[in-house]
């Protein structure tokens, strides 16, 4: 498959005559399950994502305060 895609990329380099030339490789995942799983937001993980977001914001605030303290100390 890697050989096929690399060859196809070289074909595009040689044959494209306009910007934004797009060629779709004739390969697909074995099934379509990834479409739903990719960046999934649903009732099953909404609370977990929100908790992760809150944790990130708490952490960023901590970093900001540390930076401000370091600046004030200089």
């Amino acid at each position, binding site marked *: 498959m*890697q*050989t096929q*895609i*690399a*060859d196809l*990329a*070289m074909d595009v*380099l*040689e044959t*494209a*005559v*306009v*910007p*934004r030339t797009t060629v779709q490789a004739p390969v*697909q*995942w*074995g*099934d*379509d*399950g*990834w*479409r739903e*799983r*990719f*960046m*999934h*937001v649903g009732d099953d993980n*909404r609370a977990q*994502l*929100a908790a*992760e*977001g*809150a944790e*990130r*914001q708490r*952490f*960023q605030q901590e*970093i900001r305060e540390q930076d401000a303290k370091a600046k004030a100390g200089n």
Partner: protein
Amino acid sequence: MAQSRKTHRSFVSYIDKSREFYAAQAYDQPYQWAAHDDAPFAKLSKPLSECKIGLVTTSYFLPGDFEYRVPSDLPRVPALADRSELDSLDNQYLSWAKDETHTDDLGSFLPLAQADRLVTEGRIGAVSDKVYCLPTQYSHRQTQRRDTPQLIEWMKDDGVDVAVMIPL
């Protein structure tokens, strides 16, 4: 392949999905996607079989003592790598479909072996000994005004005629 009776395949809207995914994690501002009215185009100035190819990846190197805290901490700077250094390329903090695939196979996201084959077969003239790392940035300005010009300079120094980018 799953059995289905659709008349056509629909695309997954990455922009919509990512906006909702990040909003669910309390990011306040939706990401502003780049939109260009036109795009430059340059045909090859010589046959591909005489061209030197440079591979560009969005993967990058982390310092040995790097400790991950939040995404904004990642040292997102362009880098020039020797082919021999690639073992320390680090992808774990990048956003990719980790439920579906892995990056254990270097060839799946950085096709150096394929490039070597294309050289052997005479399809391309040469492949650069260097790999060019262009980390994804939240800031379009950094990509356009800082990182890309740096990569172009490095590639010119290395005599690269064609850049092939493989985003991870």
